[in-house]
C-alpha cells in the first residue's frame, strides 16, 4: 500500500481529483461497510499470534455497527443511497444501493457480528487449536464481509459472488467443529449450497439473456414488459429454488440441522442469526422489488404453495425439535421452523405480513443468537451438549440458564418479548386475507415451541444436578455479558418496537412498491453518490 501511495505521490496524483467533488466520509460509508471487513480479514490472516488477529476483528466488528447505523440514519432521513463501485455509473458499473430494507439488514448483521466478536475469544480458545486462531478469525470476517456485501449490493451477479464468499467461509467454519460429524455436515452443506448458488446463477443468466442487464433496478425496469414471458418466469423459478436451498426453506432444509449442531459455538451463533436472514432478504428483493408484487397474480398458485410449505415448515420441524437429544440440533430444527414464520410473512404479500416477516427476521436473529450463545456458555463451562445431561444446570449456572429462559420465552412468543410482536403482525397479516387456517398454524407451532423449550427449562431448573452439570467451571464474564445483553434485547424489543417493527414497516412499504411501481428512481449526480430524491 505504501508503494501505491509513493507512486501516487510521485506523480502528484493525490492533489488532482479528476471529476466531481471529493466524497466525504458519509458518502464513503457503503464502500467502507464491505471494504473494512475485507481488509480486516486480510490483516487477521497475516497476523500471528491469534490474539492480534482477534484485535483486528474486534476493531472491525465494533466499527461496523457504527457505519451501518449511520447508513440507516441517512436512508431514513434522505431516502435511498447509491454508491458507484469503481466510479462506474450504474447500470454499467456495480452499484451499491441501500434503501430501508437492506439498511435494516445491515444493522442486524453488524450488531450480531459485534456481539459474537465480543463473546469469541475464550470460546474460541476452548474449541479451536491455537495455530488456527488467526485463520478462524479471518474466516469469520470473510463470512461477515460476504453477508454485508450480499445485503448492500444492487447487482444480481455481485450477490452471487458475495453469497459464495460467505458460503465458502461458512463451510470452513463448520468443518472446524470438534466432532468429526462436523466434516460430514460441512460436506453436505457444500454440495447443497453450491447447487443452490448455481441455480441462482442460472436464473440470473436467463434474466440477463432476456434483458442484458444485471443491475437490480435496471432489471426491474427492463423485466416489466416481459414479466409474464416464459424466460422471466423460469428465471424467477430458478432464483427462488436456489435461494430456497440457501435459506433452508422446508423441504430444502436438510443441510441445516447438522451444520448448526456441530459448528464451533461462535460460528453457529453468527451463521444461525445472520446467514439465512440475508438469504431471505435476497428472495424478498427479487420477488418484491425486481419482479414486483403484481407477478403474484400470474403466480397465485405458487404463492399459495409457498404458504403451504411455510406452514408445514413451522410445524413439522418444531415437532422434530421436541425429540432431539442434542440441544444445538434442537435449536437448529427450531431455526428451520422460524424460517417458516418468516416465509409466511413474505408469501402473504400484504403489508402487515411482510412487516411481520421482516420483524421476525430481526427478532429471531436476536433470540436464536442469544440461545446459541447461552448453549456456548454451557459447552464452555461443562462440555455438555446433550439435553439429558443438562439436568440441574439452572441451579449451578443460574445466569446462563436464566438468559436461556428469557430467550426461550421470546422463541415461544410470550407477550412482553420480541417474539410476540412479530408473531402478532404475522397473525394480523394472515387474518387480513382471511387465512384462518394459517393463524391456527402459527398458534399451534408456537405451542409446540413450549414443549421443546419447556423440556430444557424443566430439566435445567427442576432436577438435581449430576455429573458435569454439578460442577461447572466458572463462566467467562464477557460471554455471560453478551448473552444477557441479547436476552435483555429480547425483552426490550418486546416493548420498544421502533427498530424491530417500525423500520420493517417502512421497509415493507418500500418493498411492496417495488423498484418500478411508485418508488422514485435514484437521482444521478456527478459526484458518484447521490443522497435521496
Amino acid at each position, binding site marked *: 500500500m505504501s508503494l501505491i501511495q509513493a507512486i501516487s505521490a510521485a506523480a502528484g496524483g493525490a492533489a488532482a*481529483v479528476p471529476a466531481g467533488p471529493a466524497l466525504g466520509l458519509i458518502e464513503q460509508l457503503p464502500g467502507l461497510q464491505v471494504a473494512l471487513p475485507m481488509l480486516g480479514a486480510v490483516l487477521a490472516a497475516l497476523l500471528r499470534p491469534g490474539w492480534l488477529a482477534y484485535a483486528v476483528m474486534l476493531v472491525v466488528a465494533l466499527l461496523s455497527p457504527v457505519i451501518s447505523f449511520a447508513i440507516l440514519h441517512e436512508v431514513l432521513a434522505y431516502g435511498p443511497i447509491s454508491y458507484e463501485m469503481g*466510479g462506474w455509473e450504474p447500470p454499467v458499473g456495480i452499484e451499491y444501493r441501500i434503501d430501508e430494507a437492506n439498511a435494516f439488514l445491515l444493522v442486524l448483521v453488524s450488531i450480531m457480528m459485534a456481539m459474537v466478536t465480543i463473546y469469541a475469544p475464550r470460546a474460541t480458545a476452548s474449541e479451536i487449536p491455537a495455530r488456527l486462531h488467526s485463520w478462524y478469525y479471518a474466516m469469520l470476517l470473510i463470512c461477515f464481509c460476504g453477508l454485508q456485501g450480499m445485503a448492500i449490493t444492487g447487482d444480481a451477479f455481485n450477490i452471487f459472488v458475495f453469497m459464495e464468499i460467505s458460503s465458502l467461509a461458512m463451510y470452513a467454519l463448520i468443518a472446524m467443529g470438534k466432532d468429526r460429524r462436523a466434516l460430514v455436515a460441512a460436506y453436505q452443506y457444500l454440495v447443497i449450497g453450491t447447487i443452490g448458488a448455481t441455480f441462482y446463477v442460472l436464473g440470473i443468466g436467463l434474466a440477463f439473456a432476456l434483458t442484458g442487464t444485471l443491475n437490480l433496478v435496471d432489471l426491474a425496469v427492463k423485466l416489466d414488459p416481459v414479466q409474464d414471458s416464459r424466460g422471466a418466469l423460469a428465471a424467477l423459478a430458478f432464483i427462488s429454488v436456489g435461494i430456497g436451498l440457501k435459506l433452508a426453506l422446508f423441504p430444502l432444509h436438510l443441510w441445516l440441522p447438522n451444520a448448526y449442531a456441530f459448528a464451533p459455538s461462535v460460528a453457529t451463533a453468527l451463521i444461525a442469526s445472520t446467514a439465512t436472514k440475508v438469504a431471505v432478504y435476497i428472495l424478498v428483493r427479487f420477488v418484491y422489488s425486481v419482479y414486483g408484487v403484481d407477478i403474484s397474480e400470474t403466480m397465485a398458485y405458487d404463492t399459495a404453495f409457498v404458504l403451504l410449505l411455510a406452514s408445514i415448515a413451522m410445524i413439522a420441524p418444531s415437532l422434530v425439535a421436541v425429540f432431539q437429544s442434542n440441544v444445538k440440533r434442537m435449536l437448529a430444527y427450531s431455526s428451520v421452523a422460524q424460517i417458516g414464520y418468516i416465509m409466511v410473512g413474505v408469501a402473504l404479500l400484504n403489508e402487515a405480513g411482510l412487516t411481520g416477516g421482516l420483524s421476525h427476521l430481526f427478532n429471531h436473529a436476536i433470540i436464536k443468537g442469544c440461545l446459541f450463545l447461552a448453549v456456548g456458555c454451557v459447552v464452555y463451562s461443562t462440555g455438555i451438549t446433550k439435553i439429558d445431561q443438562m439436568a440441574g444446570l439452572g441451579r449451578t449456572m443460574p445466569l446462563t440458564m436464566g438468559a436461556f429462559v428469557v430467550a426461550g420465552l421470546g422463541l415461544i412468543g410470550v407477550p412482553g418479548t420480541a417474539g410476540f410482536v412479530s408473531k402478532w403482525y404475522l397473525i394480523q397479516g394472515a387474518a387480513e386475507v382471511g387465512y384462518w387456517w394459517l393463524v391456527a398454524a402459527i398458534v399451534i407451532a408456537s405451542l409446540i415451541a413450549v414443549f421443546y423449550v419447556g423440556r430444557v427449562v424443566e430439566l435445567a431448573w427442576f432436577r438435581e444436578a449430576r455429573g458435569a452439570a454439578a460442577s461447572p467451571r466458572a463462566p467467562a464474564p464477557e460471554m455471560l455479558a453478551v448473552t444477557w445483553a441479547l436476552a435483555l434485547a429480547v425483552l426490550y424489543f418486546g416493548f420498544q418496537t421502533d427498530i424491530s417493527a417500525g423500520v420493517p414497516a417502512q421497509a415493507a412499504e418500500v418493498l411492496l412498491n417495488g423498484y418500478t411501481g411508485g418508488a422514485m428512481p435514484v437521482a444521478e449526480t456527478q459526484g458518484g453518490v447521490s443522497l435521496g430524491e
Partner: protein
Amino acid sequence: MRLDVILRIAAKLMIPFIMLFAIYVQFHGHYSPGGGFQAGVIIAAAVILYAIVFGISAALRVMPRAAVEFMVPLGVGIYAGTGIVSMLLGRPFLDYDPLLADPVAGQYWGVFIVEVGVLVTVAGAMLAIFYAFALRGRP
C-alpha cells in the same frame, strides 16, 4: 542410473519459458485476453511441474509453505488497499482515476496494481491447495 533424465532436462528447459509466458500474460492483459488470474495459474503450474519432476521437498525450498500462505492474504491486501487509497483520495472504492494526475494513466496503473494483487493471491492459493493435498499425512 536415473531414468527421468528426459523429464528433468525438458522441465528445466520449459519452466523458465512458462514463467516468462506468465509474465507476458500478466503484462499484456490490457491488450489481449489475459490478466492476473491466468498469469497466477500459469506461475503456479510452473512450480507444480517443478514439484512433480524434482520432488515436493525441492519445490518447498523454492516456494516455502509459509511464503505461499502469506501470499494468499497479501494479494487480497494489495487489491483492497488500492481500493482504500481511492477512497482516501475522495472517490469510490476501486476508482482508479485519482491514483495519478492523469485519469487515463490512473486507470492504467490502477488496473495494473490490482492485477498484481490478483496474481499474488491466485498463485498463492493454487500452490497452497497443491501443498495442502500433496503434503497431507506427512510430518
